[in-house]
């Protein structure tokens, strides 16, 4: 498959892994954070930990939108869906995320009209096809998905579709990285920068990380070779004692981002003064809400939202795992009370959540040793 196989070539991957080993100082421990949940998934999916030397530790960052969404927001969204006239729509990732009173999938089993959509425009299509119903789209995601929500709202307005609204949970990546860096128990050497978010925002917004915080950051693609090459680039910076923003994912990410997407977002959304993040608490100016000019399509203004706040189960240590202070397996609930089938915390739900990724791909595997390929 073109644009995939080239980045999974075992020979090139092995060569790049050798380069990492030669660059890494054996006397030093490296803590690299991959910000994006897609990277977390790729690390486990491709078994990348097995090819890295043990002194390179990958810390999973906050870039999994499902994982950072507080439980109360799910309950709020589902409360609106209880109206028999409402069709509740969301991405598939949301379906098994538990609120305090069950997940969307459980509500569906109990008769709520819950539908999986692959794009917000599909939800709008549903609204056109069901003029006697109200279709609500439960929007989640970073700058990666926010433009498509913005464009859908623009289209709804242009077409005058009134039976459609968005329950907006879009968040922005930069304040989350800042919160991580401000956290006193955090010691990070460098960042593997998010790839998909950067297709929209570009690389410039990361410059303060290098300039003010002295941490190298390389925006990375999602194939095994992309990630290993990004690690090579980070190790080179660390070796030379410099900290700059580099773009490994040039085939997709323009340095300046996507102006059209940013313009659509700016037209439809504005920053919320503050927003609660699961595991990280309230972060100011870290999330988007729908502007007054689109108020008619804002579910939070069209409906009575209960404004539920739910604290996470005490024993769950999602916050510590999310900040990279604990590894998934160090959480008291991991693999016992909390599994992908019966997730207690959201990190166990999304395939991009570090706990689910770790559980699905890693936790029964023997300690990181080079694996002999299966005999065929």
């Amino acid at each position, binding site marked *: 498959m073109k644009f995939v196989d080239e980045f999974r070539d*075992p020979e090139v991957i092995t060569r790049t892994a050798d380069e990492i080993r030669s660059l890494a100082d054996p006397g030093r421990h490296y803590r690299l954070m991959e910000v994006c949940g897609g990277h977390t998934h790729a690390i486990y999916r491709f078994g990348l930990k097995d090819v890295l030397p043990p002194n390179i530790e990958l810390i999973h960052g906050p870039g999994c939108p499902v994982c950072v969404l507080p439980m109360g927001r799910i309950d709020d969204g589902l409360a609106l869906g209880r109206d028999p006239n409402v069709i509740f729509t969301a991405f598939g990732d949301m379906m098994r995320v538990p609120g305090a009173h069950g997940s969307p999938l459980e509500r569906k089993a109990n008769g709520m009209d819950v539908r999986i959509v692959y794009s917000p425009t599909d939800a709008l299509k549903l609204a056109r096809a069901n003029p006697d119903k109200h279709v609500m789209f439960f929007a989640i995601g970073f700058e990666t998905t926010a433009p498509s929500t913005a464009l859908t709202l623009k289209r709804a307005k242009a077409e005058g579709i009134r039976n459609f609204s968005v329950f907006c949970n879009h968040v922005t990546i930069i304040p989350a990285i800042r919160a991580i860096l401000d956290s006193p128990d955090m010691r990070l050497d460098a960042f593997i920068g998010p790839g998909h978010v950067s297709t929209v925002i570009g690389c410039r917004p990361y410059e303060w990380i290098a300039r003010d915080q002295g941490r190298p950051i390389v925006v990375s693609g999602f194939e095994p070779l992309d990630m290993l090459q990004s690690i090579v680039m980070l190790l080179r910076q660390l070796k030379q004692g410099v900290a700059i923003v580099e773009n490994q994912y040039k085939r997709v990410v323009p340095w300046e981002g996507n102006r059209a997407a940013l313009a659509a977002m700016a037209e439809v959304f504005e920053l919320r003064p503050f927003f609660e993040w699961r595991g990280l608490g309230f972060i100011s100016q870290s999330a988007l809400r729908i502007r007054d000019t689109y108020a008619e399509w804002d579910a939070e203004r069209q409906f009575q939202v209960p404004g539920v706040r739910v604290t996470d189960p005490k024993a769950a240590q999602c916050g510590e795992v999310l900040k990279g202070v604990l590894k998934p397996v160090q959480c008291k609930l991991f693999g016992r009370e909390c599994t992908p089938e019966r997730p207690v915390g959201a990190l166990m739900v999304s395939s991009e959540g570090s706990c689910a990724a770790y559980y699905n791909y890693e936790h029964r595997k023997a300690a990181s040793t080079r694996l002999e*390929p299966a005999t065929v």
Partner: protein
Amino acid sequence: MAHGAGGKATRRLVDGLFVPLLYSAVPDSLGDAARVDIDGTSVAITTDSFVVTPLSFPGGSIGELAVNGTVNDLAVSGATAVALVVSFILEAGLPTDVLETEVRAMANAARAAGVHIVAGDTKVVEHGKADRMYIATTGIGRRIPGLDLGPSRVRPGDRIIVSGPIGDHGMTILLARGELDLEADLRSDTRPVLGMVTALADAAGPALRWMRDPTRGGVATTLNELAIDCGLALHVSEAAIPVRDAVRGACELLGLDPLHIANEGQFLAIVAPEKADAALAAIQATAGGEAACIIGDVRTEPAAAVLVTTGYGGGRIVDMLVGDPLPRIC
């Protein structure tokens, strides 16, 4: 819904409720068919129900699936299907031409598989109480002599064989629903596997340890069940798994693993190493088995798990399917 998806929840339902309450003697493993002894004659019996939506899709339809699915469950249990009985549950208002098309599809599939449909039952439920039509088939089969199959016979060093490219059926159904705006030239792989199984049994004899068809939950779920039942490690080489480009591409786009996608006309076999090449050659020499290949081997560690290895020394545990990425595909 997850309890019907063939993954972990299904297993829990079967082990936690059905087996303790319904089985008179606890079987040592749950294969695809049961053995029943009647007056000294041992026969294989199995049942399956089909609730696929849409009813017809590229490469097949519910009627064909209902015959092939049960014939294949018998085949991978080491038995040749002799007779089927069939039950229809029909939603009031189902057009008769749709029903007739499916009945004809069943007749053709039965002829192709060399099995007789000998009895049946029909129920009609009110409009809205069923999704057009459901079909259940029960099959009885003659056991192929000289075979002794089961997880307890699997040994470290054995090889894992798959009969052809995986994921065609599940991905075809997903795309046939038209919800994804994705198009690909894909067809369901529904077909009887008895010919390939017979050739394999002839070539391997007692070196054939175990067989299953990786339907719901895909290859990953079926291999995980085996790994749990035999307590051994199943190592699969990612590069060796046959997957069509269209299936691989769609999986990449949708974030799915081909190992979790359902199949209808494929089977997995475990064969002792000394007979593995002969067994593979026998399948490949049978019509439809040309793309069969060895995808891995059995080891001891990590116990009771399926490990997929990459060409560059990495690996990942592949678990059973959790939940249901593609509801009702068979």
